[in-house]
C-alpha cells in the first residue's frame, strides 16, 4: 500500500478511469424553482447546448441523477423537500448551486428565504449571477468536471474516506 493510503498503481489507474467516466457523463436533476430555472432551460436548449459537455441526460428522478442543479430560491417551506431529494440521490452525487438566491439568498434577506442552500445540503460549485448567464453555467460545469476528474469533490472525498476506513478495519 502506498504512503497516502491509496492501494497501488492498478487501482489508482482504475479510479482515474472511473472519474473520467463520471466527469463526462453527468446526469443532472434540474431543481428549478424560479427565475434561474428559465436560464437553466436556456442552457440545456439548443443555443447553448449542455450536451456538448456530456450533461444533457436530464433526469427528474433523484435515483437516476448524480448532479443536483439547484436553480432558484429555496425557502423555509422548500428546504426540507430539497434535503429529501438530496438524500434520495445515490453516491457519488454533486450539487451545483445556481444563482445568487440558492448560493446566498441574494437580494432576498427576508423571513422566508434560506440564506444559501449550503445550510441544508453540501454544495460543490457555486454559480454567481442573478440569474447567471448560460456561459457562466457552462463554465461552472467545466470546473466541476475538473474537480471530479481530480477526485476533489465532497462526494468523492467521502467515498475515499469510507474506503480507507474499511481497509483499516480489515487491517
Amino acid at each position, binding site marked *: 500500500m502506498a504512503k497516502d493510503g491509496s492501494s497501488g498503481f492498478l487501482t489508482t489507474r482504475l479510479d482515474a478511469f472511473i472519474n473520467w467516466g463520471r466527469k463526462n457523463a453527468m446526469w443532472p436533476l434540474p*431543481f*428549478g*424553482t*424560479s*427565475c434561474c*430555472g*428559465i*436560464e437553466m*432551460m*436556456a442552457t440545456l*436548449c*439548443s*443555443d447553448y447546448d449542455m450536451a456538448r459537455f456530456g450533461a444533457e441526460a436530464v433526469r*427528474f428522478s433523484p435515483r437516476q441523477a448524480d448532479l443536483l442543479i439547484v436553480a*432558484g*430560491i429555496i*425557502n423555509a*417551506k*422548500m428546504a426540507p*423537500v430539497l434535503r429529501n*431529494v438530496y438524500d434520495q440521490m445515490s453516491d457519488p452525487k454533486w450539487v451545483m448551486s445556481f444563482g445568487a*438566491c440558492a448560493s446566498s439568498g441574494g*437580494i*432576498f434577506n*427576508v*423571513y*422566508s*428565504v434560506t440564506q444559501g442552500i449550503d445550510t441544508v445540503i453540501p454544495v460543490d460549485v457555486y454559480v454567481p449571477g*442573478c*440569474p447567471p*448567464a448560460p456561459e457562466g453555467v457552462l463554465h461552472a460545469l467545466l470546473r466541476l468536471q475538473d474537480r471530479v476528474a481530480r477526485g476533489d469533490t465532497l462526494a468523492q472525498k467521502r467515498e475515499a474516506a469510507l474506503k480507507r476506513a474499511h481497509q483499516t478495519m480489515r487491517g
Partner: protein
Amino acid sequence: MSEPRSNRAGLFEEVAVIQGKPSDQVSIHRDPDDLWDDARVIVNIGPTHPAMHGALRMVAKLNGETIEKSYCEFGYTHRAKEKLGENRTYHNFIVYTDRLNYCSALINNVTYAMAVEKLMGIEVPTRCTWIRMVCCELARVIDHLICVGINAVDLGAFSFFLYGFHQREEAYTLIEKLCGARLTTSYTRIGGLMHDAPEGWEKEVKDWVKRTRKVIDEMDSLLTGNRIWHQRTKGVGVFNREQCLQYSWSGPNARAAGIDRDLRRDQPVMFYKDVEFDVPVAQNGDVFDRYSVRLEEIRQSLNIIAQCCDKVKPGPVWAEDKRIRIPDKEVVHNTMEGLIHHFKFFMTGFDVPAGEAYTTFEAANGELGFYIVSKGGPRAHRMRIRGPSVWHFQGLTPMCQGSKVADMVAALGSINIIAGELDR
C-alpha cells in the same frame, strides 16, 4: 368532448362493445371484494415534479387515472416581496419587480414605474413611452413563446419548443443590448429609463420582428394542424366564461373563453390607442384555444413592435422632475452638489406623496396590478402585487375535476403559472 370524462363511463362503453348492447343496458357484475371499485389512491404531485412548473404542488385523489378530487398548494418559492416593498425605497424596489413574472420582467418594470408615477403625478416623455411599449411587447412575445413551448414539451412536442427558444434567445440579445441583462432587466426607472436605447436598436428590433414572423408561421404550421396535438388539447382543461369570471381569470386565458377584454385596448395607458392591433378571442376555453390565442397574440405583439419602432423619435427619456431624476454620472463625479444629490437619492430615496392607487396593466398572463398605499416618505405603507397567476392557479382544481392526470398536465401548462408572481 367538453364534459368530464369519467372512468366509469368509459368502462361501461367498453363492456357495451364486448357484449354488443347499448351502453345503458349493460350490466357489470362486480365481485364485492374486487378492488376496482375502491381503487382510489391519493397521489402527491409536486412540488418537484417535472410537470409542475416551478414549485407547485397538487394532492389528488385518483380513481385509476382520473382525478376525483384534488387541492393545490403553493408558496414553495415565497420571497416576501410585499414585505420588502414596505422596507425598501421606491427606487430600490425596482429590482424586486423583475423577479415577479421572470419570463416577462420588462412588463413588471414598466407597470411598477407607472404605478409610482401615477402616485406622484409624473408624465414621462414620448420617447420613453414608446421604448417602454416596445419593451412590453418584446417581453410579451418571449413570455408567450415560453408558455406555448413548455406546454408543447409537456405534451411531447419537443421540436416546437426548440424553434421558439431560438427566437427567444435572439430577443434576449436585443434586451441585453438595451440593459445588459437577459432575464432580470430592471430597465425602467421611476420617471424614465435606465438609459436610452442604443443607436440603431429600433432597426435591429424590426429585423428581429421580420425573422420572428416567419418562425411563428413555421411553428404554426408545425403544430396547429397536427392531429395528435388536437386530440391532446381540444376539449381538455375547459374553463368557460362564467367560471373565468367567478375565478377572476384575465388575460389570454380569459380571452380563450370568450371574455373580450384587454387592458391595453380598454384602458388608455401609454400610446396603445395610437397603434393598431387586434385582440384575439376564442370561445371554447380549452387548452387548444389558449394555445391559439397566445400564438395569435404573438403576431399582434410583433405588429405593435413594428409600429412602435416606426414612431419612436429621438428625444429625452427622463421626465423633467427634480424629485426623481437620477443625477448624471458626469455631474456626480465632478461636482460636490451632484455627489450629495446622488448619495441622498440612493440612500434615503425620494418621498412619494400620501395616497393610494391600484395600477393595472395587461401583462403577458393577465391583469398585473400594483396596489400601493403611501403615507408619505420614501417607503410604501403597503405594496400589494396582484399577480394573475394566483387566480389562474386557483382555477386548476375545478378545471381538473374528473379529468385524467395527463390532461391536468396539459391544462397546467396552458394556463402558464409562473412561480415568481404566484408566490411573490
